[in-house]
């Protein structure tokens, strides 16, 4: 439990800074520090056991199905790293408290910092590689926030994004690698994986897993060729740099290589990839560091170089080299954190980090100088400081590598060390030595204790470890190294290896060469400045921006709002897939069903229908003609239905068609009456080809289906058989609609109701838009007839309206047994009302109407719902209907069916929906400049 708590504490504590900042900056920092300290104490409590060689474990099930569990373990390596992260974290918090300006939001800073700390601790304590991945990506995210902390700096944003892109991307590769690894080992638990070296290295998936995992590690640790992000991350506030880029985040990759060392190292692939990447990084970054003027940039490249060094050591694959690597991790963390903090102090005091504008600080800031001197000498590998010890051991290891030949690695390592000496001295010489200047942006002096306390403590450690390595650090180094190498070897660290040690001469060469290099610095510098170099930011931008542009082009050209093109793609896509499905099947068996002889009536209808439909594409530009032709087609489909034994369909099609036509005519009043020619002939031909193919396919399918005898009994046999006895009606179509499948109808009338609500809502929105009302008032008008409501129509309607309603009632009542029903009845009523509206105008007619359209819809849905819910009272399901034959004098025997109530709901909903839609359109029409109508017909007023 306690290990999980150590990892969780920073996350839980991340809530504190935001709350405590209200109590002041000290409280905020103190709370943050307390959280870290508590975690450190908890860690320390575990330390004795670990140092005894035990492994502390905590296992919490999270996602057992996948093998992702919150399993933690603590061994020497983990202890060392966790201690480093929390210990240096504590110092950084102290430092940041004094470093951050009053205007900087400190709460946010410490929140991010604790998130980051938690993620780092999580990485080093994870006993589950999937869990490790979670923390791994969390470090990417939280460092993104930290690097971009100063939002106003464009470099900060850039650097943060670059860091996230590189480390996050590497993390994604690592996900794949880890999954492969877990699959080979049969578990995602590290403790299990670490037992499976042979199986893993023998697996054919070893190399891909290795490469993918190393991608994650290299990107995180800024190894060549992924080193470019680190310097740009220096835009972060210095405490961030000091923390992330010396002790923690960049070490995460190193940690991972060390952690995986027992199972992944020792192969030729490992050696070649890891050692070469490390070596190249070490030399190249050290060279660049020499020419950086920004203190932090110099330190950043130096960090890259040192990480390369460590990587190289791990890559050698020998336990000895790995031990040296672990040792150097500790050393580097100490001196580099101190150096970053001094750089921060300089920046804080002198308001610049530019070496060209500095110099002479030795006198102005003696304390800072002392710290800087110790740390940078250690970085240069000057005895007896701790950096010397590990560098000496590194050179020794390098000297013994015999691939690709006996000396190349050694020489290169020496050159790296040489550059290291040079830039370390340059840091010191150009920053602190020399005469005091009078043109600092700000007159510097030593800061308060709070700011230098942390680096000073680190400097002391640098010295002490350098002097008494075994006492100071051996207790930690040995368990850590043996955890890495998997053997209990205990190294004794010596300052002196004897004259015959290759490292001695390499070291001497490095220091000497480094000093020579520094002496020749001005000349080298002009040479460097003259050499064109690839600039990381530009390359990164050159990759990302075109990528984003390309992405934008791809997506925008695909999703450019062109409806017809997306439609063509969709139709062709559907057609191709359907055709493929058809062609790849067992061949379709031609139909066996007897073909119906051609009925001359149908032939007649068919001829008219086909000609009218075929003409539409040619004549559609005149919209009224197109509408006429559509009307012809739609109206002819009705008798077609009738002739194929579907009278209900004929009635419905007919009445729907008329209402549709009226709606379209109403709409056409607001739209242009002509469609301009906008697509060229080839496009039209293409469209015609697409449409023709689709039509051919659909027609073919219809034919294939119609001519085939159904393979099984159809469920409609039940409907037919039960229509009268079960549902109490002789019209099987109607009993299906109101009873067997009444639930479909329930949904269908709600669709209609919603349609009307939508129409109403949109017309409301339109009417509230002044631009729309202005446009309505200025719609182009053709010459209009002088009479709006011709008397003859009004008089005819006075008769036709009641008659139509009579027909409607009739159709409603007979529906259950004969063609008809609530839906058609509603439509007939609607048509009757439409006639009335056409005759006397909407206003006049509506003013005499006693109910509201919304209410009709509401009642319709309610009545239909209630008729369904009523069945619950009898313990029966929704929409269960009952019917009873009632004899009530003087009425003849009639049937009382609850389905009729449902049908009434249908009727109301349909009527209400159509009327509401009409009302909405009429309200729009009112704004076209015509006043409301106050008389039944035109003559009423004149006579």
């Amino acid at each position, binding site marked *: 439990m306690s290990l999980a708590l150590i990892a969780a504490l920073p996350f839980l504590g991340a809530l504190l800074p935001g709350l405590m900042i209200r109590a002041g900056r000290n409280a905020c920092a103190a709370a943050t520090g307390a959280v870290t300290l508590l975690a450190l104490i908890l860690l320390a409590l575990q330390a004795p056991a670990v140092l005894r060689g035990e492994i502390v474990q905590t296992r919490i099930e999270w996602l057992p199905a996948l093998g992702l569990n919150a399993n933690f373990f603590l061994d020497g390596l983990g202890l060392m790293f966790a201690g480093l992260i929390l210990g240096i974290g504590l110092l950084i918090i102290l430092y940041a408290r004094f470093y951050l300006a009053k205007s900087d939001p400190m709460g946010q800073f410490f929140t991010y910092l604790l998130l980051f700390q938690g993620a780092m601790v999580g990485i080093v304590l994870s006993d589950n590689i999937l869990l490790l991945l979670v923390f791994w990506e969390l470090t990417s995210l939280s460092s993104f926030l930290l690097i971009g902390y100063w939002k106003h700096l464009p470099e900060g944003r850039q650097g943060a994004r670059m860091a996230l892109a590189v480390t996050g991307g590497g993390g994604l590769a690592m996900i794949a690698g880890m999954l492969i690894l877990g699959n080979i080992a049969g578990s995602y638990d590290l403790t299990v994986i670490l037992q499976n070296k042979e199986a893993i290295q023998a697996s054919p998936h070893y190399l891909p897993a290795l490469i993918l995992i190393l991608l994650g590690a290299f990107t995180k640790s800024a190894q060549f060729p992924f080193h470019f992000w680190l310097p740009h991350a220096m835009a972060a506030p210095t405490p961030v740099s000091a923390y992330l880029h010396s002790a923690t985040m960049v070490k995460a990759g190193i940690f991972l290589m060390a952690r995986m060392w027992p199972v992944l190292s020792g192969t030729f692939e490992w050696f070649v990839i890891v050692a070469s990447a490390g070596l190249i990084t070490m030399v190249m970054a050290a060279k660049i560091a020499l020419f950086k003027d920004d203190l932090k940039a110099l330190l950043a490249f130096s960090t890259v170089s040192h990480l390369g060094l460590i990587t190289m050591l791990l890559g050698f694959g020998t336990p000895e080299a790995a031990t040296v690597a672990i040792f150097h991790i500790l050393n580097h963390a100490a001196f580099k954190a101190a150096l970053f903090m001094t750089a921060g102090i300089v920046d804080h005091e002198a308001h610049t980090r530019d070496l060209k504008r500095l110099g002479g600080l030795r006198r102005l800031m003696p304390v800072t100088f002392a710290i800087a001197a110790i740390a940078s000498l250690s970085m240069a590998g000057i005895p007896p400081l701790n950096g010397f010890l590990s560098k000496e051991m590194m050179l020794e290891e390098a000297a013994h590598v015999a691939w690709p030949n006996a000396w190349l690695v050694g020489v290169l390592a020496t050159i790296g060390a040489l550059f290291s000496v040079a830039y370390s001295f340059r840091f010191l010489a150009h920053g602190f030595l020399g005469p005091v200047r009078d043109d600092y942006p700000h007159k510097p002096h030593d800061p308060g204790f709070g700011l230098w306390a942390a680096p000073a403590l680190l400097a002391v450690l640098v010295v002490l470890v350098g002097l008494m390595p075994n006492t100071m650090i051996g207790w930690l180094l040995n368990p850590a190294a043996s955890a890495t190498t998997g053997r209990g070897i205990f190294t004794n660290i010596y300052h002196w290896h004897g004259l015959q040690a290759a490292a001695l001469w390499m070291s001497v060469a490095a220091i000497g060469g480094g000093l020579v290099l520094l002496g020749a610095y001005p000349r080298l510098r002009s040479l460097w400045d003259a050499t064109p170099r690839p600039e990381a930011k530009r390359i990164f931008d050159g990759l990302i921006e075109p990528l984003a542009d390309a992405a934008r082009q791809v997506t925008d050209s695909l999703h450019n709002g062109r409806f017809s093109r997306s439609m063509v793609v969709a139709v062709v896509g559907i057609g191709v897939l359907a055709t493929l499905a058809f062609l790849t099947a067992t061949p379709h068996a031609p139909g066996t069903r007897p073909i119906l002889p051609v009925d001359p009536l149908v032939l007649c209808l068919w001829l008219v229908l086909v000609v009218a439909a075929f003409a539409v594409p040619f004549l559609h530009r005149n919209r009224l003609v197109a509408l006429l032709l559509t009307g012809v087609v739609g109206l002819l489909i009705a008798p077609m239905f009738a002739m194929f034994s579907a009278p209900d369909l004929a009635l419905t099609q007919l009445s729907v068609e008329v209402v549709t036509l009226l709606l379209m005519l109403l709409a056409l009043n607001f739209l242009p009456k002509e469609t301009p020619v906008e697509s060229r002939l080839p496009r039209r031909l293409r469209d015609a080809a697409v449409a023709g193919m689709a039509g051919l396919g659909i027609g073919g399918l219809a034919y294939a289906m119609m001519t085939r005898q159904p393979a099984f009994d159809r469920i409609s046999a039940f409907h037919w058989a039960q229509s009268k006895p079960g549902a109490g009606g002789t019209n099987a179509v109607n009993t299906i609609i109101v009873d067997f499948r009444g639930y479909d109808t329930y949904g269908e009338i709600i669709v209609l109701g919603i349609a009307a609500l939508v129409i109403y809502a949109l017309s409301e929105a339109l009417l509230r838009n002044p631009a729309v009302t202005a446009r309505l008032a200025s719609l182009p008008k053709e010459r*209009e*007839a*002088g009479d*709006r409501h011709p008397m003859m129509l009004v008089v*005819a309607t006075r008769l*036709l309206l009641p008659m139509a309603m009579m027909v409607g009632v009739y159709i409603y009542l007979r529906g259950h047994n004969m063609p008809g029903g609530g839906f058609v009845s509603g439509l007939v009523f609607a048509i009757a009302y439409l006639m009335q509206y056409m005759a006397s105008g909407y206003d006049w007619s509506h003013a005499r109407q006693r109910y509201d359209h919304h209410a009709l819809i509401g009642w319709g849905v309610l009545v239909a719902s209630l008729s369904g819910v009523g069945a619950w009272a009898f313990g029966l399901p929704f929409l269960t209907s009952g019917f009873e034959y009632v004899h009530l004098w003087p009425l003849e025997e009639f049937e009382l069916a609850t389905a009729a109530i449902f049908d009434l709901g249908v009727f109301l909903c349909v009527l209400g929906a159509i009327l509401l839609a009409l009302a909405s359109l009429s309200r729009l029409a009112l704004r076209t400049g015509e006043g409301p109508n106050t008389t039944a017909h035109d003559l009423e*007023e004149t006579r």
Partner: protein
Amino acid sequence: MTPALDMALDLFLSSILVGGGIFALVGSYGLLRLPRPMQRLHAPTKATTIGVGAALLVSALDLLGQGQVSWQELLITVFLLLTAPVSALFLAKTLILRGEADPDIPDSGTGKPWATLAPERHDS
């Protein structure tokens, strides 16, 4: 029914149908043959109505012959008689307004113009 009566009915119905068919055709033929738009309006309003009427009559009588009384035919006829003049009026008005009718429209003699061509009335 006796065979003779049956035969007579058959003959009678057939002749009505033949007549009706001819009228239906004449209505549509008139649309093509008559040269001026107003003239063309006469054909469908009358001839076609008679054609439908014949079919309706036969339908009613035929069902009657089978022993079913069917009155809906009468209803359809009433509907057609009620509506055809209004349709025709509106078609004529459309022709007049759009200048497609014969241009020599006489004065109304009442001092007011024909309604279609009257200046628009504006309600308050």
